[in-house]
Each structure stands twice: as structure tokens, then as C-alpha cells.
């Protein structure tokens, strides 16, 4: 009931989203990883540069996520593969260096929460759900989340990679954020 009440207040503009608890992210203890598949086997990588703006109240499941991701900071353990990731067929970093994930709609689930957000990547914007758990106290919390997305929805991996035989179509994105109350 709480969340529905909060949602009504939000709709009415009575509660400003910015008033949801704002959190400062401890970047050195936070991570944003991705995992795609190469011939069916996990191929992990990470974004070393990303800037999450997180406002969230776990009690009411309200808030706002706005995460900017520096695509050029994506890396695997292979510099040549990284050149492909940054290159025109995958992230096309030169054209659009930043991906952005924004969510304002949240739901509580049996396991935790889900953010119904949108990811803008390579000039395409698509709905992406981020399932996450939230643990901690009002001063320090940890968000651990996972999203599953279809790379071809964003034209990531075109050209010789468009076929999902070698590089799978589904990409898992995982994040862990250490958050301090502001």
C-alpha cells in the first residue's frame, strides 16, 4: 500500500522525486560489469567509468536512477577485443560515447525491487528492467542489480557479428553500488 500511496503522491506532484533519499556512490567500491557469450561461453567485461545518480527510498520503492556509462571505458581481458567493443560495429564510441540508463518507476518483488527504466545506447532507447536487492541502513546501503538485454535491440554487434552464432544476443549487465546517504 505504501508504494501505491507514494505513487499517487508522485503523480499528483505532491512529493518531488528529488525528495527521495539521495545517495552518494562510493565509486571505488562500486562496479558495473557486463557479460556476453562467445560460442556459448561467458565472456565477461567491465565498465571502469560510470556515474550513477541514485535517489531511492527502499521503504516506499520510490526514487530516480540516472546512470551515465562511459562506453569507451568498457574492457575485457583482451585489448584487441576491446577495440572491437569500442569500434563501429559494437558501441561506436566515436559517435555516442555515453550510454544512459534512467528509471523513475519501481516495484517491489519477492526478492527485492525492479526498476522499469530505459536505456539509451547507440542512439536507441529501449525499456530495460533492472532487478535489484537493497541492503543496509539509512546511512550506508548496497544495491546489487542485474539486467538482461538484447544487444541487437540497440544495434550492438552489427556487421559480421549480427548473427548470434558466435556472440550471443543476450547480454547480462550486473552492478553493485556502495551508497552513502547524503
Amino acid at each position, binding site marked *: 500500500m505504501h508504494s501505491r500511496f507514494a505513487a499517487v503522491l508522485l503523480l499528483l506532484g505532491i512529493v518531488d522525486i528529488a525528495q527521495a533519499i539521495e545517495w552518494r556512490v562510493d565509486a571505488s567500491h562500486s562496479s558495473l560489469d557486463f557479460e556476453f557469450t562467445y560460442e556459448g561461453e561467458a565472456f565477461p567485461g567491465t565498465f571502469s567509468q560510470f556515474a550513477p545518480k541514485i535517489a531511492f527510498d527502499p521503504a516506499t520503492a520510490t526514487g530516480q536512477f540516472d546512470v551515465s556509462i562511459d562506453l569507451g571505458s568498457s574492457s575485457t581481458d583482451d*585489448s584487441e*577485443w576491446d*577495440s572491437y567493443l569500442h569500434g563501429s*560495429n559494437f558501441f561506436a564510441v566515436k559517435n555516442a560515447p555515453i550510454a544512459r540508463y534512467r528509471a523513475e518507476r519501481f516495484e517491489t518483488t519477492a526478492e527485492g525491487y525492479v526498476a522499469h527504466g530505459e536505456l539509451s545506447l547507440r542512439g536507441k532507447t529501449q525499456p530495460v528492467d533492472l532487478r535489484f536487492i537493497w541492503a543496509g541502513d539509512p546511512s550506508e546501503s548496497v544495491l546489487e542489480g542485474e539486467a538482461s538485454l538484447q544487444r541487437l535491440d540497440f544495434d550492438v554487434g552489427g556487421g559480421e557479428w549480427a548473427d548470434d552464432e558466435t556472440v550471443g544476443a543476450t547480454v547480462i549487465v550486473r552492478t553493485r553500488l556502495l551508497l552513502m546517504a547524503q
Partner: protein
Amino acid sequence: MSLKNTTQNWGSVARLLHWSTAVLIIATAIIGLTMEDIDVPTVYKLHKSLGLTVLLLVAARLIWRLLDRRPAYPSGMPKLQQWISSSAHGFLYVSMIAMPMSGWIMNSAGKRPLPLEWFGLFPVPAISGPNPDLRHLAHEVHEIGFYIAAALLAVHVLAALKHHFVDRDHTLSGMTPGVQPLPPKE
């Protein structure tokens, strides 16, 4: 200049093979040193295509070496120096084979091999299945081998210049078009 070598000078086939490998090796090395910073797949592809071409040319050079005579060492060159020179050239050949071969193995033995093509014209097969230990070894050989090869190349160039400017013999001029031996010193 004849196609084949004479007792004094290198023929045009040997010169063409020598200088084309020289240019390709330097280009391959410069690209290899910078491609991680340039961060563009095409640059890696170019490095590989050039390296495979070097391997082909070295095979041609070895065959030509078997078929053609070699010019004599300059008269009066001490036996020990001749032996050092032959050994250095042997090591140059070893590195000209080891560098592209280790690169080819790196490309083949990787966990997630990227397609290998010769200048985008035709596919080049993998020479090994995925094998992390082999890839690691090939990577070490490629990296350490680069420094050894670069040192050998420096010695090779310095020795040629020493023969030309100090000994004033036909070593450099015999391989380099348009260069005449310097007149003997007073």
C-alpha cells in the same frame, strides 16, 4: 645488376627480398607498438596481414638462399668476425620466423579467437585450438622476441654503417641500390 648474386654483390632478387622485408618489418613493428592505443580493429588486422606477409617473404628468402650463392665476406675480415656475422644473421632469421609465428599462434590459441584474414582477401586458418597456456607462451615470445629482434636489427644496421664508413668495404653498397663504396682511407 643481375638477378642472381655475384661473389661481390647481392643480385636484384636478394635486394628486393631484403628491402621489402625490411620495410614490412618496420611497419609491422610500429603498428604493433601503437595498435593498443589506436584501439581500432582494422589496425590489428593490418598488423596481422603485414606480419603474415613477412613470414611468406622470409620463406621465399630461405628458398632463394638455398638456390643462390652468397657474396663473399670482405677480404681480410677476421674469421671470428665472420662467425659472429653468420650467427647474427641466423638469429635475425630466427626472429623473422618466431615473431609472425608466435603472433599467428596467439591469434589461434586465444579463448575467443577473432577471424584472421590476409588483407581481408582470404581467411587464414588457425594453427592451434584454444589453449590458454600456449597463448600465454606465444604472447611472451612475441613480446620478449620483439626486444631481441629490435636489438638484432640495431646491431645489423650499425654493423652495415660501420662496414661502410669505417671499413669502407662493399657490405652496405652491395645490398643498397644507389650506394657506392667509399674510397679507401689515406
